[in-house]
């Protein structure tokens, strides 16, 4: 339970509340037992839909009941023409919208909505996009809705450019929209790829525009974190190439070690290293400091000292 404030009540209020709950509980228990019974009997009918709807309207995270509804939809598909199924699915979408009004952060509800859209004969993905816009206007940070929107935009063939404009619009409404800044970080490299061909890099002109936008944001509200994180990302996008930073050799009569420091973690190669000492070639062994196969930025080459200085 999140964000439920504890309220103090009088004994009388508490008693009234207790009675009300007792009544609610009785109905709840009767309805759920009836549903279990019907499911065990394989009764995939309209009554099952209606009973589970009653429970889910109050308790949308009851995922088993969504499973039962999907079983009913799959069953009904075999017995009904597409127009009937289309109609049933429309009704389900309407019901799901009501569930989302009650709890816009239910994993089960968003997942069932996606399932119905994939299942129905003629899904209207453009209209789904409108639904997402509506729920993002209630809460611009609802990550369930953002995720569903990304899925929907793909299904509705919305271009990354249009999505980028949507993100700009959201940020201009309110700079403090971390979700929308995040989305830009995914879209920017797609829309403005760098000439170098590195998928992570962004073309210079587009980068400068983004710097302006981020600066505007933190001039407006320096205490909001969103634009600062984005700014840090714009700045620090260079990745080190895999290179050897340092080499260090030490030896005594029994053991010679070459310590290699790389710019990125690397797993000890399976092939043994061959080290040349003038004319002589000596085969060694790769190890990290822990003698296991975890990748590391520091690897040792162990050589037998006698072999080297024989």
């Amino acid at each position, binding site marked *: 339970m999140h964000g439920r404030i504890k309220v103090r009540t009088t004994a009388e209020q508490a008693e009234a509340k207790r009675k009300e709950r007792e009544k609610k509980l009785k109905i*709840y228990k009767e309805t759920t037992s009836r549903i279990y019974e019907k499911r065990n009997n394989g009764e995939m009918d309209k009554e099952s839909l209606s009973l589970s709807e009653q429970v889910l309207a109050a308790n949308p995270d009851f*995922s088993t009941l969504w499973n039962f509804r999907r079983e009913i939809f799959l069953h009904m598909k075999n017995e009904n023409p597409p127009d009937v199924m289309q109609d049933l699915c429309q009704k389900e979408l309407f019901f799901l919208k009501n569930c989302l009004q009650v709890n816009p952060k239910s994993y089960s509800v968003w997942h069932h909505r996606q399932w119905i859209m994939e299942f129905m004969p003629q899904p209207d993905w453009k209209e789904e996009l409108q639904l997402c816009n509506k729920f993002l206007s209630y809460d611009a940070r609802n990550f369930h809705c953002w995720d569903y929107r990304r899925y929907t935009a793909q299904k509705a063939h919305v271009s990354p450019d249009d999505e980028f404009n949507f993100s700009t619009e959201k940020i201009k409404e309110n700079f403090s929209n971390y979700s929308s800044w995040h989305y830009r970080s995914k879209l920017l490299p797609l829309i403005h790829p760098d000439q170098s061909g590195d998928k992570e890099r962004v073309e210079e002109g587009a980068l400068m525009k983004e710097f302006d936008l981020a600066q505007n944001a933190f001039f407006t509200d320096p205490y909001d974190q969103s634009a600062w994180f984005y700014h840090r990302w714009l700045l620090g996008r260079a990745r080190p190439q895999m290179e050897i930073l340092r080499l260090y050799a030490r030896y005594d009569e029994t053991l010679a070690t070459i310590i290699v420091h790389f710019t990125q973690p690397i797993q000890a190669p399976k092939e043994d290293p061959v080290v040349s000492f003038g004319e002589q070639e000596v085969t060694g062994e790769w190890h990290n400091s822990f003698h296991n196969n975890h990748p590391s930025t520091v690897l040792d080459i162990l050589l037998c000292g006698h072999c080297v200085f024989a």
Partner: protein
Amino acid sequence: MGSQIKDVKIPPNSPTQLSLVKHADFIAAYGKKKDDYEYCITEFLRMSGVYWGLTSMFLMNKQEMMDKDDVIEFVKSCQHENGGFSASHNHDPHLLYTLSAIQILSLYGCIDLIDVEKTVEYVSKLQQADGSFVGDKWGEIDTRFSFCAFASLKLLGRLDAVDLQKAVQYILSCMNFDGGFGCRPGSESHSGQIYCCLGALAIADSLHYVNADMLGWWLCERQLPSGGLNGRPEKLPDVCYSWWVLASLRIIGKLHWIDKDKLRSYILACQDEETGGFADRPGDMVDPFHTLFGLAG
């Protein structure tokens, strides 16, 4: 004009001492309210609820206050033909509750009471071609499920049953511009999700892929002036992030980037001294979920 920082004020008369006895009583009493409306409508997550309660008891060294035989009997009775566990009777098996069931039996050290091979088979069959995991046969994909699968198989000693390389690659495809992780590729970073992904990567010996400095910065910025931690930027604090964020920082070795004293006073202020238990924020209703993560923090 600058907006107000989203945070709460800790009321002056908030608790400052840990009331362990009350918390143990709260958990013990919660499991006995079988005819309570709140209790009944949360049946869909009962297995996890039992795990939260039991782990809280173990943390307080009060595990004898829960009936071990009853708990084990309940867990066993929730295993299905396909090897998966459901939250309760009449519910369908799901990876979330399969992990909770395995965790409960592991706490008691009696994992051999169930059909381990079947459980391993259930979990490994949920892996998809791209390395991701679905939560059950209905196809919801989420990095939470990657963690559930890894943790389950690690506890069962059968990590070899899935394609770890692919699973790691999928998790890495969910990494974001801030170094964090989301539910699926393209999803925004979230502290709970970050915990799951770091946990999975740690189990798979793959933490070297994480940019610990960048992610550590994002995670320690979750601390607000009240001392509490939030789950995402510009959100209110919540006691459960004392676990998700702290455990994440611990995994990447940056625990010292947080002001521990302030966090401690925030967590203590979330206790209800009358009923026992922790709430998400000072003055809110308590529940077993926040009680576990308050105690764990």
